């Protein structure tokens, strides 16, 4: 029941927010966000690092089709659950004032949709039935759609529509493969959607490849990976930074999560068959994402596009098939979540102050708002992998793994470090340093609420930069299990 409760806390919160008196909307919403965080930590404290899939619960849902309401938590799931519950309270706090603006449609719908999105994401990360996964996977889109379309800048309706159509298209492609798995299991005599049942099947290679294509395309749209990334820039530009944090840091991780869970977990042969293509796509994403990020003038669009590069790293780590890469990829998912959240939120504070999103119209912030500039710098440095901050660890692991895979792959991936330094530092230079903007009052520094949001994120970046071991302890057993089941020898592991 632990995991059901984990999903129910924010879900009940969403309903509560929808009905409480207007003045109580935000405190109640935040209370449920914090309650989810506390409960998530409780779940984590009960988690046994060597226990494999645990806290499982299985109930028949649709008997006629072998669908179960089945939840379970493993190392990968736990990482994602913790990331999700930890990101939501800062996002709520960051939107404390904006969500009341006349542009948006009130705090009530913002807080309710955020909590609904949290609940659905938690369900995605704990589902152990493919159809349940699919259902909640699609269900995350509706809150996301209304968050993008209801809050943010003009043109958001169009961006929201583009987002939804892209995502639903990916979802339907996924549906084809999900049904395909069902038919395979039915042909084997036991129609079922349970991952444990499906993993036991011996699927013939040709079928595996077709199913793989469906899964991979859907997750590549989600993640996003080149050439399925075009929704990302528009969405992150038009949505509020808070929404973008939820999308990029929590929701998009479903893509790489799905690759690990389904592509590697259920279709190992096909995953290895597809490795060359996937690795190339990942490398293109890494380099191309960084290159077009450099050229952006809109700070939110820039941050959004850096994620394309980062997701390239994560996918690369997953598909080089060794323990270092796998562990690095999962660690990267967490670190990227924290670092990008920091960048987006600080950029949001900056935009509130300057009233523009265009980098070319900013400047001279450093002198007046050192804390703001400092936290923006830390986020940028984290993104380009400065040692001492947590993304460094994961990036190095993925790059080592890439060199292990092939020297050429590794050397292309290394390029990204240089490019990341360019986009991060150049953005910092243009927005924060230089002369004051003429005719505009100097920018005020972060207030206490904003410092309260930024500080834990910075702390986490530093802490996990020096002590990644607690995370690795959870991730390593999962990677070990999943790679052994794929049939990869585990030489060259991180320990």
């Amino acid at each position: 029941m632990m995991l059901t409760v984990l999903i129910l806390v924010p879900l009940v919160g969403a309903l509560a927010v929808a009905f409480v008196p207007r003045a109580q909307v935000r405190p109640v919403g935040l209370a449920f966000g914090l309650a989810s965080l506390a409960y998530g930590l409780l779940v984590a404290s009960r988690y046994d690092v060597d226990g494999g899939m645990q806290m499982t619960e299985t109930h028949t849902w649709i008997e006629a089709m072998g669908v179960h309401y089945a939840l379970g938590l493993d190392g990968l799931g736990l990482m994602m659950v913790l990331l999700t519950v930890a990101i939501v309270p800062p996002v709520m706090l960051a939107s404390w004032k904006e969500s009341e603006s006349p542009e948006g449609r009130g705090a009530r719908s913002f807080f309710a949709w955020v909590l609904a999105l949290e609940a659905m994401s938690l369900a995605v990360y704990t589902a152990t039935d493919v159809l349940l996964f699919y259902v909640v996977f699609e269900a995350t889109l509706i809150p996301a759609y209304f968050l993008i379309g209801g809050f943010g800048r003009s043109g958001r309706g169009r961006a929201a529509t583009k987002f939804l159509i892209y995502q639903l298209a990916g979802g339907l492609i996924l549906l084809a493969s999900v049904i395909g798995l069902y038919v395979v299991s039915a042909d084997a005599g036991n129609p079922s959607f349970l991952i444990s049942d499906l993993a036991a099947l011996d699927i013939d290679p040709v079928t595996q490849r077709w199913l793989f294509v469906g899964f991979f395309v859907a997750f590549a749209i989600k993640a996003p990976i080149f050439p399925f990334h075009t929704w990302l820039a528009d969405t992150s530009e038009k949505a509020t930074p808070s929404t973008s944090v939820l999308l990029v840091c929590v929701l998009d991780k479903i893509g790489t999560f799905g690759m690990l869970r389904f592509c590697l977990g259920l279709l190992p042969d096909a995953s290895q068959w597809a490795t060359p293509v996937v690795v190339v796509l990942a490398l293109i994403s890494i380099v191309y994402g960084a290159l077009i990020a450099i050229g952006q003038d809109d700070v939110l669009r820039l941050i959004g596009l850096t994620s394309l590069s980062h997701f390239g790293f994560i996918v690369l780590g997953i598909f080089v098939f060794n323990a270092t890469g796998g562990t690095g990829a999962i660690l990267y998912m967490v670190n990227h979540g924290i670092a990008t959240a920091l960048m987006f939120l600080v950029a949001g504070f900056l935009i509130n102050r300057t009233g523009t999103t265009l980098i070319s119209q900013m400047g001279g912030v450093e002198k007046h708002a050192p804390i703001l500039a400092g936290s923006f710098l830390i986020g940028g440095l984290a993104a380009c992998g400065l040692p001492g901050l947590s993304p460094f660890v994961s990036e190095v692991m993925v790059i080592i793994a890439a060199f292990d895979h092939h020297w050429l792959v590794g050397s292309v991936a290394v390029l990204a470090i240089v490019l990341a330094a360019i986009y991060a530092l150049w953005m910092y230079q243009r927005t924060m340093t230089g002369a004051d903007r003429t005719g505009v009052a100097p920018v005020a520094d972060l207030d206490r609420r904003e410092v309260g949001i930024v500080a834990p994120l910075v702390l986490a970046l530093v802490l996990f930069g020096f002590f990644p071991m607690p995370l690795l302890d959870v991730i390593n057993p999962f990677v070990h299990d999943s790679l052994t089941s794929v049939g990869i020898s585990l030489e060259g592991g991180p320990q």
Partner: protein
Amino acid sequence: MTDFVKPSIDYFELSPLLVVFAVACLGVVVEAFFPRALRYRAQVVVALVGLVAALVGVVLVARAVTTYDDGAARGVLAVGGTVAVDGPSLFIWGLVLALAIAGVLLFAERHLDGGVSAFAGQAAAVPGTDAESASIAAHREHTEIYPLMMFAVFGMMLFPAANDLLTMFVGLEVLSLPLYLLSGLARRRRLLSQEAALKYFLLGAFSSGFFLYGAALLYGYAGSMDFAAINEAVRNDVGSSSLLLIGTGLLSVGLLFKVGAVPFQAWTPDVYQGAPTPVVAFMAAGTKVAAFGALLRLFYVALGADRWSWQPMLWIIAILSMFVGTILAMTQSDIKRLLAYSSVAHTGFILVGVIGLQTSDQLADGEITSLQAVLFYLATYGFATIGAFAVVSLVRDSGGETTALARWAGLGKESPVVAAVFAFFLLALAGIPLTAGFVGKLAVFSAALAAGAWPVVVAAIAASILAVALYVRVIKVMFFDEPVGEGPSVTYPSVLTATTIAVGAVVTLVLGIVPGPVLDLAAVAGEFIR
């Protein structure tokens, strides 16, 4: 010369059918003998009570029917083998009756248009004449619509239960004729409505002609109208196969016209746009259910052994329907026409399930069958459609319903609840999880893929992606576009329409979250009997 044998009529098993027929006749009597002032109330009560009684009858019969003949399926062949009361029949009867009850509620709505129904005050008055103005001034209304609807419901029940070609034809006609009439009875935009009725009638008459010709050819082939006998003939490959093929083709034309499959879809947009919205709601849901019931019975029972000849045809028609329906829907600027084309696309999706026919020995234990999938899909589609059209009837301006999509901009601000409910129905039609439409799609796609029809499933997925773009566009218009001019206004309905919408929404939600019971019901319905 054989002696004439009086057929035994199984009154109990046929009771739902007989009740509806009796209520229809009673409605005519009420029309003749009740004073005008009382007719509306009397007709609504008679119709509702009759439908509820018939629904109870369906439940009782369903509990009572025993296994038939070889024991694989349950049911009774009634009236000398012309009407099959079996699981699928009963399921469809129940569904049609439930939709008809919702339909009567919509027919009876008088709150939306200033105290009169959506039907013409006096159909015989030529539009634009003094006679029409007089009928409007006198607040006249036709109460014949209720008995007409009951006859249509009777046809919708007989059509899928018919076990020979002639009975099926009778069912087809009894179902169609009242609907032609009802389509022409709109109170507003009467010329459009009459045009719709005429188009529907002419094309419908043609398609009936095709059906009858096909029935004749199939009789020539098999020497019998009876489905079991046709099945025997097909199995033993007697007679000329060209007669069989042409006959099958012509029968298909008749049936595919009724379900609105491409290339026989041309009537749908005009009729859906012109006919009174309550009629469209009832017709779109009910006709589709009944006609698919008949289609399934004809293809599975009579022609099942010959499925290698008709399956390729249905492959093509399914793919065409999905794409043509979806793509043309995207180009529409009128919400009723948009929903009409979307119903064409849904015909295609249901046909995907029909294609998935497999014999029971090809299926794993507990795997979903094609019949089960199609029946479930029909249930989900029926309720979402009737609900969606009911919502359409609420959005109005001074000239009646506002069906231009552009005028729906800003509905989400004007009336968030109505916009949210409509968005929910659209998401159900798009097949988004946690709505019934998703489980329906999942079921038919699974059945078709299990039967190896993967190209059709791939096409269906592609069409679904297009369809998503279509429905999301409407949602965007409602929620995120700025209203033009005075903006849309929502007239709040009486409890009648509100009930229909609420039932539609609740069924769509519940079937999306706990589809188990209805899927099981469709499984218990079992197979057709011969």
